[in-house]
């Protein structure tokens, strides 16, 4: 029985979903604090050529995505450091190029899967990968909580406090790239960034301090994905799982917005 539960497709889907949502929404707190919401959105599309390569060479799309995302990100950080070009413009260029290459090498059906996810492709191997990397990312976020918070508050202040911003940026973007790559099968490259952005934005509506911000973000993320997955399953529309998750995250965001206005009155 103990082994059977791990191979149960529902366990794999719900387990992967909740783990990924918790990690993404924790990471998302730092992303939106640093005004990088749109950057993460653009970055997720950089995974597309990787998915294409994985499809052509017949290996796992997680691996394909991270193998393209990680070096591209590292290159972007280096170019920004050396040329002082705006990170946003750089990402804008790479974003368009990635979609173009992705559309060029991926057949239509696979392109759609890459963009919106396909939970029927989620196996025990994916669950193990998600569990493993989520743990790494959560340990990183907890260990460097102080430094990441101070950078999120103000890079200038973090510099004064002698925090190694370059090293932490590299690690932070690597963690973001990992979350994006891990989420492609579940929710798709087009939608995965919402898992990073929406829960943290909901939390910002409710939180009065840093601990609450993280707590509410994780709770909103986990609730949103649970409702989304549950609804997609009971309504028997698993091919729309990704979009339904995003709709349920957005409903939670709207509720927090109403709650915020209510509290102000």
């Amino acid at each position, binding site marked *: 029985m103990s082994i059977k539960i791990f191979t149960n497709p529902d366990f794999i889907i719900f387990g992967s979903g909740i783990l990924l949502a918790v990690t993404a929404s924790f990471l998302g707190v730092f992303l939106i604090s640093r005004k990088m919401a749109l950057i993460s959105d653009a970055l997720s599309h950089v995974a597309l050529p990787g998915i294409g390569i994985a499809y052509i060479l017949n290996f796992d799309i997680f691996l394909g995505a991270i193998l393209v995302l990680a070096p591209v990100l590292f290159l972007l950080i280096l170019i920004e450091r050396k040329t002082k070009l705006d990170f946003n413009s750089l990402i804008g260029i790479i974003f368009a190029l990635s979609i173009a290459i992705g559309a060029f090498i991926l057949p239509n059906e696979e392109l759609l899967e890459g963009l919106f996810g396909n939970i029927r492709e989620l196996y025990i191997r994916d669950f193990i990968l998600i569990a493993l990397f989520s743990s790494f990312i959560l340990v990183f976020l907890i260990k460097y909580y*102080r430094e990441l*918070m101070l950078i*999120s*508050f*103000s890079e*200038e202040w973090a510099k004064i406090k002698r925090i190694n911003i370059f090293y932490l940026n590299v690690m932070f973007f690597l963690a973001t790239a990992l979350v994006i790559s891990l989420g492609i099968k579940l929710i798709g490259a087009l939608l995965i960034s919402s898992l990073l952005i929406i829960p943290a934005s909901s939390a910002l509506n409710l939180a*009065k*301090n*840093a601990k*609450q911000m993280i707590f509410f973000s994780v709770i909103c993320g986990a609730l949103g994905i649970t409702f989304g997955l549950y609804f997609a399953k009971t309504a028997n529309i698993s091919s729309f799982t990704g979009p339904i998750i995003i709709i349920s995250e957005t409903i939670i965001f709207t509720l927090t917005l109403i709650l915020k206005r209510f509290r102000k009155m």
Partner: protein
Amino acid sequence: MNETLLKIENLEISFNGTSEPVVRDVSFELKRGEAIGVIGPNGSGKTTVLHAILNIIPYKGEIKFYESIDKNDEIGYLPQKLEINKSIALSVNDFLKLNLNGKNKIADKGGKIKKMLEFLHSENLLDRQLIYLSRGEVQRVLFIASLLNEPKILLLDEPTTGADPTAEETIYNHITELKEKGEVGIIFVSHDLNIVHKLADKVLCLNKKMLCFGAPREAFNESNLIKLYGENMKLYEHEHKNIY
């Protein structure tokens, strides 16, 4: 008392791509219990010198910290203005806790943050969110943050920018107290020559290069001020009976 904390010799700073240094020929010493006031027009390099001392920009010349300064000791720094991200739910308490270093984290069991806030008449700020504070309130919080780890050197860049007169008085009274205790050496930048005259033991005049360094009475002469601020600068003398 009077022990040297910091010695700067022939400091020269250039920014990328410019051959002309933005600051040159700066040499001075900071002693424990001493306050040095830095004056000069906008763009004269006052903040740049502070950044060099903090070692966050490259420089030529020597900035030597004396043995009494531990490598892990922090230099307290209050920037003139700080860009703060607005999408973060950080309370004043959160922020100040994040600024405590190792040994002080344990010490905060005694409520150091609360005490500091009370001391600067800011206890009402503890649970407020930083992004909703006024500029003057943020400045007070940053001032507390710069003092939290009991630095031996304190660099203050126009410490009362945006502060209302009461906050300004609180901050300057606290600086005076710190000076009188004799435990820290302070370098502060100010445009307010009255404040500099009142607080500084020594004055450093800066306009791309060091134009004077010495006691306020020597530094505040007409020729130095004209060199700093131009011909339109006039000095009106009036008597202060209890200036020190």
